[in-house]
């Protein structure tokens, strides 16, 4: 072989190798690759499962199952939109989806896999330890479609420094006391900044106050809550607080996060807001009033005999799309996330634990100063609005009537009558 052919031969070999090796490598990695579990969730779910003092809870499961976990995280509304779209497809690549309680309507829930068979064959340890009111709300026609994972329970956050400034010596013990204190805490500070006594941002915060005053919006068994007298009294209080400038004018434009920002900026003395946000309210990097915010369960009505008002919570549950593949693997992951130990570790990472027993953990008690208050509230709680097909319309109706009364567009009596009529038409 002369040099010319030799060179050609070597060149050809190099080309063949260059073209073949990537294919071989790709094929090998495909064959050797770990399984993949695709989870669609909010960022808080990923963070609480993987990052923080509780460690990466998923690590040992991933190793034991030789499976990678891919998190697709989205904001609340985009998540709902995308997950619902995935559920309505012929087949989805999403193995596990996180869903908020009010969004898990019967129509949507039934696009998830019923989990009863899994719970029988391969049960979650101490399943009864998970908040029964939450698991019950995820059950339709006797079948459970999702397992509760995270809750946000409404509590009362108050700025202790403002209390001292206005000569108020203790936190409110009853809801009547809270309303009186809110009026005293509406004032202009020496630096010219206005402080509002109380802020109620979203419907769940507003309904928490109604529950504390002895009323209810929609009961877990899907009846209009009433009693009418309590709703009228509640509306009268809202109007009174607005006229006294306790509730700020900007409240009609608040989104879910605005009350937190107002508390951090020192623009309000009290908020009814998820207890877990105590941390952000006292974080010196985020809050002007860090160290001054205390958190309690919402106080009950005077004479109710309760230690705390019936709590309002929102919670996320985790389920398996009916049109997904590899359901056994998905169940294995859900089951693993839901053990007491992992629930507690997730709580240490910032999750609201759905097991009461997690609150007995010494590490959690040390980390969360409001742990005992949250435990107290969780024992006696329910969702702001239970899941049913018109739950979103009911939430919007609540907001509409609340604003109409607050601004004086309707009288409390008329609003209570109209609310009853219109909510009843939405209920199944």
């Amino acid at each position, binding site marked *: 072989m002369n040099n010319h052919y030799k060179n050609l031969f070597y060149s050809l070999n190099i080309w063949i190798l260059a073209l073949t090796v990537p294919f071989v490598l790709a094929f090998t990695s495909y064959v050797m690759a770990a399984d993949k579990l695709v989870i669609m969730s909010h960022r808080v779910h990923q963070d609480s499962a993987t990052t923080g003092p509780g460690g990466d809870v998923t690590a040992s499961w991933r190793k034991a199952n030789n499976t990678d976990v891919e998190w697709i995280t989205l904001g609340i*509304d985009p998540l709902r*939109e995308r997950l*619902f*779209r995935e*559920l*309505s497809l012929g087949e989805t690549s999403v193995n596990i989806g996180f869903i908020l309680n009010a969004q898990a*309507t019967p*129509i*949507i829930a*039934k*696009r998830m896999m019923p989990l009863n068979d899994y719970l029988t064959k391969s049960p979650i340890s101490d399943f009864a330890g998970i908040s029964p009111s939450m698991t019950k709300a995820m059950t339709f026609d006797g079948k459970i479609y999702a397992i509760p994972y995270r809750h946000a329970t409404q509590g009362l956050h108050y700025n202790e420094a403002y209390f001292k400034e206005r000569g108020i010596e203790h936190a409110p013990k009853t809801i009547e006391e809270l309303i009186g204190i809110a009026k005293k805490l509406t004032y202009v500070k020496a630096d010219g900044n*206005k402080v509002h006594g109380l802020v109620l941002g979203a419907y769940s915060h507003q309904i928490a106050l109604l529950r504390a005053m002895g009323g209810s919006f929609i009961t877990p068994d899907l009846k209009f809550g009433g009693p009418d007298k309590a709703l009228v009294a509640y509306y009268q209080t809202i109007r009174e607080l607005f006229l006294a400038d306790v509730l*700020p*004018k*900007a*409240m*009609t*434009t608040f989104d879910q996060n605005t009350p937190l920002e107002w508390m951090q900026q020192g*623009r309000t003395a009290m908020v009814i807001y998820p207890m877990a946000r105590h941390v952000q309210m006292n974080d010196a990097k985020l809050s002007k009033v860090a160290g001054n915010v205390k958190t309690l369960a919402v106080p009950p009505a005077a004479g109710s005999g309760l230690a705390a008002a019936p709590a309002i919570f929102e919670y996320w549950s985790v389920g398996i799309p009916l049109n997904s593949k590899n359901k056994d693997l998905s169940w294995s992951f859900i089951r693993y996330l839901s053990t007491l130990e992992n629930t507690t570790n997730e709580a240490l990472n910032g999750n609201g634990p759905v097991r009461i027993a997690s609150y007995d953990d010494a590490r959690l008690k040390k980390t969360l100063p409001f742990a005992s208050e949250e435990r107290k509230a969780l024992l006696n709680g329910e969702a702001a609005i239970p899941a049913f097909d018109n739950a*979103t*319309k009911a939430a*919007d109706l609540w*907001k*509409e*009537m609340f*604003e*109409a009364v607050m*601004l004086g*567009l309707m009288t409390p009596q008329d609003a209570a009558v109209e609310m009853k009529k219109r909510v009843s038409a939405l209920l199944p």
Partner: protein
Amino acid sequence: MKRLGAIPYFLVAPAHVMMLLFIIGPAIYVFILSFMQSNYGLDPSFIGFENYKKMFQDRYFWNATWNTFVVVNAIVYLELFIALVLSMVLPPPSLTCRIIVSALILPYAVSEVVGVLMIKYMFDPGVGVISYWLNSLGLNGLEWTINPRDALTLVVLLSVWLHMPFTFLIIYTAKLGLPADVYEASKIDGANAWQRFRHVTIPLLMPAIMIAIVFRYIFAFRLFPEVWLLTQGGPARQTEVLGVYLYKSAFRYYDFGLASATAWAMALLSLLVAMGYLQNMHRKMFVHAE
């Protein structure tokens, strides 16, 4: 007349195919959907005119229609008035003029979302800088968070600020093209400034004004981000416009049938409003020109 071969049709075909795929196709699909009950989790089913019936029986639809009608008219005519005044008072083309025109069209370069959020914070009743100035002057600022009328007023102001450059550019460029001899003739005939404006400028600008009005009507009918980002239709659903009503039907309640019916109602309403102007334009620009 020479017959056209296949090539010209072939050359314009991509544009038609695109239009078919992205405009006509989806419009037909939405039309079909307006006769269906369609929701995530449910298979679509034909329900005849039920969505239209539901829409016409809903008082919030009529409230949104009325708000849209009032707000759109206010926006279109306020923009037109401002654009016309600015076009008249601007100096002849020069460096100064270019700088002023650049400043005037600047809001058009601002993203709607950014613009609305910026204005929202400036008008915040507690900490907004404009609210603060107005209060300092003893004037009560717009109470847009609690007063629906004030909220819609702010929507109009905001929308005019964002979109006026479009109307301005059309009218201003048309004004630059007006023939000078007609003005000379009117001056010789003894017309004063107002008479020249009324009887020379306005008639000559009318085709451009018509185009600006028709386009702005059609665009303004789809009014959404200004209202959604500012009030989300509140307080108490008093500031909802048709765009917000449609969005809530589709993406909050997932009632795609009702949302499709609303979309068609919006398209027909804007066509109805535009029709008068389009007819007028056609008469003046083509029929009289023959």
